[in-house]
């Protein structure tokens, strides 16, 4: 397909911005924009033009915890690159200090125990103020670490199963059952670590004891957390 055709490019950009360009075509256009200035300029023009439709909506004030959650995520993310990029020593102490303050305030003292080889994947909870599980992985995604905040209230007929949700419509992949308290570390299979690396989100479903009998979630999905991009 010749994307350079002006009319076609304009219409692809317009339908992308409106949202009616879906699935693989949507992803293709995103990739095109990352390499083509005319495509990303066309997208920018339509974003500008149509933004007035978004401004018609009456504002909704977010609850206070939303901003605190953002601060927490930014503090955690600032910590990871601070270790990796040794070339940026000038801001490293500052970033490390900021990350420590963020961690101390928001994640609790127990997380200050460093686990150098791990990186945060997501925090799952009823909302950002009530985290239930913190999910981390090793850099190569072959190991999964789970930290439980407090104890999970559930009856004996329930277990909580963790799923990696790929962003492309493929079915969820089980990452195993979640602990009801304390910490857990587990080695993932090849398929699980691939799924974890590709996941856009992790989800928790309620399953019978021992986990889903079918290999796919059978009970309600109670939590979904976006995977942090590093």
């Amino acid at each position, binding site marked *: 397909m010749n994307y350079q055709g002006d009319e076609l490019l304009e219409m692809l950009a317009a339908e992308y911005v*409106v*949202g*009616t360009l879906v699935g693989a075509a949507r992803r293709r256009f995103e990739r095109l924009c990352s390499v083509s200035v005319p495509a990303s300029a066309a997208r920018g023009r339509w974003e500008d033009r149509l933004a007035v439709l978004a*401004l018609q909506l009456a504002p*909704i004030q977010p609850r206070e915890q939303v901003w605190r*959650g*953002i601060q927490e995520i930014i503090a955690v993310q600032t910590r990871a690159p601070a270790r990796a990029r040794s070339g940026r020593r000038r801001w490293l102490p500052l970033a490390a200090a900021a990350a420590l303050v963020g961690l101390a305030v928001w994640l609790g003292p127990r997380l200050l125990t460093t686990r150098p080889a791990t990186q945060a994947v997501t925090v799952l909870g009823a909302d950002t103020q009530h985290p239930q599980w913190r999910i981390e992985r090793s850099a190569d995604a072959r190991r999964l670490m789970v930290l439980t905040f407090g104890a999970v209230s559930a009856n004996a007929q329930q277990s909580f199963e963790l799923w990696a949700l790929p*962003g492309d419509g493929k079915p969820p992949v089980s990452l195993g059952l979640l602990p009801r308290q304390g910490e857990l570390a587990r080695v993932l299979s090849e398929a699980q670590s691939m799924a974890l690396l590709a996941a856009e989100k992790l989800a928790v479903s309620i399953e019978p004891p021992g986990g889903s009998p079918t290999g*796919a979630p059978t009970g309600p999905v109670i939590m979904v957390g976006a995977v942090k991009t590093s």
Partner: protein
Amino acid sequence: MSVPEPSSDELEQLLARCAAQDSAALEKLYQRVAAQLLAVVTRIVRRRDLAEDALQDVFVRIWQQARQYDQIRGRPLAWMISIARYRAIDMLRGQRRVVSLDDGDMPMQLIADGASDPVEESSITHNALQRCLEILTAGQQRCLVLAYQQGLSHEAVAASVGHPLGTVKSWIRRGLQSLRRCLES
């Protein structure tokens, strides 16, 4: 309806400070635009808790991508609105896949809600888009606004307005073509 739009200059300066890792600038940006962005994502994902999760992601992305903001991407508010809409649309489409595993828990009644939603009047009267929208047919206008504001696919718009899929696709396409001609004239 809408708060006064923050000035592009101010938002650009705040984005530049975010690019330099100034988190106070992100907080200020949040105070300026978070409520508008929450309105945008809530209309699409239809659930307050999911919308606030999406809003968090949106601000983390703004923080991470502030360095890449460029005027080629349009006005800064439009750029941020786009980040919010795309995040919400991804969440809506991803969430439907998750939820479809569990039919009892469909969180949103898009179709019923959409059908009764009037096309709202804009508070921004001097806008070229608004003027150009008025030259569209009622059907084109309604389908376009539904798709944009609610993140609906062609199929969902068709179900919402009760017209065949082919008709809706062509209304949206022709509506966009007319808008472009009007805006560029």
